[in-house]
């Protein structure tokens, strides 16, 4: 398995270089905002070592509650372990952003279980749906009834916190054959209007399930009209794009934009093109927890990309 981009601390990667890291399952990424610029300060568990400046939030993703196959027979159990780490954090994050695939099959009991466990954090969660959250009979009604309050369309919305403008987008609806994730004209028009009166100095965090940029077209890992959204965001001085879906860390800094995909709390997926399909990657059962929280994301000051350091809990 390729490990390029790991342990590159101090080597000073160029801004446009892609850091990729295949880490299999994880907990959440703690983000902090200083001087208006969001930084990730480490995977939770490492968070105690960080020094948050008063405003932090977590990104968690791809909980897949209801998944019980070989790659992880107890996705609810690993979510509980992640939530236990959140509860143990010395400084509570302001909120959690969940970048989709809360459930595996959109069943009411799966949503109930997820709500119960996330509720134990005592922290507000801002959700966006993954494709697994809208496969109820009425195609997304169950999700919207639960999490759609105050949102538009299939569940998109924005809010402001600590001077940062947060935008939750939905790119898992009305997908076209042979294509990728899809935002659609209505959502893009809403986004344009939402940004219209925002000063270019407003830090922006945009989050959605499927990566907005194309990571691997052959597996559908990207958003067909994602560039249209990113073009609307170009004038802003600081844009952070948070996605899930691919169950591994991938990071990229391009100009004023930082792209980051989160780990799953449920099961790993293979690196692009490294397996016959993007399906759940089987690791031996006794290894699954050894890889939980394996990697740390650290900030190198300045305009350098985030550094990912490979580190086992055992070692």
């Amino acid at each position, binding site marked *: 398995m390729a490990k390029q981009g790991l342990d590159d601390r101090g080597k000073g990667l160029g801004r446009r270089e892609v850091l990729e890291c295949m880490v299999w399952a994880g907990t959440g990424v703690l983000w902090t905002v200083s001087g208006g610029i969001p930084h990730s300060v480490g995977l939770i568990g490492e968070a105690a070592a960080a020094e948050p400046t008063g405003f932090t939030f977590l990104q968690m993703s791809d909980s897949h509650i209801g998944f019980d196959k070989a790659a992880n027979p107890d996705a609810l159990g690993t979510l509980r372990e992640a939530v236990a780490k959140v509860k143990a954090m010395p400084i509570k994050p302001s909120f959690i952003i969940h970048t989709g695939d809360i459930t595996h099959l959109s069943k009411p009991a799966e949503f109930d279980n997820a709500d119960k466990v996330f509720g134990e954090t005592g922290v507000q969660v801002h959700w966006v749906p993954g494709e697994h959250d809208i496969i109820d009979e009425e195609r997304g009604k169950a999700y919207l009834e639960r999490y759609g309050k105050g949102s538009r369309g299939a569940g998109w919305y924005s809010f402001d916190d600590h001077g940062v403008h947060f935008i939750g987008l939905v790119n898992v609806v009305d997908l076209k054959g042979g294509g990728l994730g899809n935002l659609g004209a209505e959502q893009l028009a809403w986004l344009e209007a939402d940004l219209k009166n925002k000063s270019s100095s407003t830090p922006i965090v945009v989050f959605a399930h499927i990566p907005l940029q194309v990571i691997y077209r052959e597996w559908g890992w990207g958003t067909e009209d994602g560039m249209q959204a990113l073009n609307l965001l170009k004038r802003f001085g600081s844009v952070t794009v948070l996605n899930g879906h691919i169950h591994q860390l991938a990071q990229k800094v391009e100009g004023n934009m930082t792209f980051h995909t989160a780990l799953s709390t449920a099961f790993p997926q293979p690196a692009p093109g490294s*397996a016959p399909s993007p399906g759940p990657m089987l690791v031996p059962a006794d290894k699954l927890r050894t890889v939980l929280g394996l990697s740390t994301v650290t900030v190198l000051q300045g305009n350098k990309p985030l550094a990912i350091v490979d580190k086992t809990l055992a070692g």
Partner: protein
Amino acid sequence: MQNLMSHIRLTMARFTPGRAVVVAALSGPVVGALLAFGAVAAQEENVVTIDNFTFTAPELTVAVGTTVKWVNHDDIPHSVVDKNKAFRSKALDTDDSYSFTFASAGTFDYLCGLHPHMVGKIIVK
């Protein structure tokens, strides 16, 4: 590779004729003969299997009045959605199936509603 091999072993352990296609795809020429056999068998039964995020056979020709059955063998749910809305399955979990009877002639392009890069075609004559 270790992971892939253990995956193959697991797949073999729950091997059934319907799974011939994915195992063949993974295991190379030795099982290649089974691939041909599996594909023919699937076609005779008008079954489209879903393995490794792929519809097999990707293109199937049937007579008017034929019922085609899709079976999902992946650990991830998929669905079967006609591009022109002639049919749409619910999400198919592992080993779930969906059947549709083609009452009229035509070409039906379909996709997986969750993973739209997965596409297939039914030609009804």
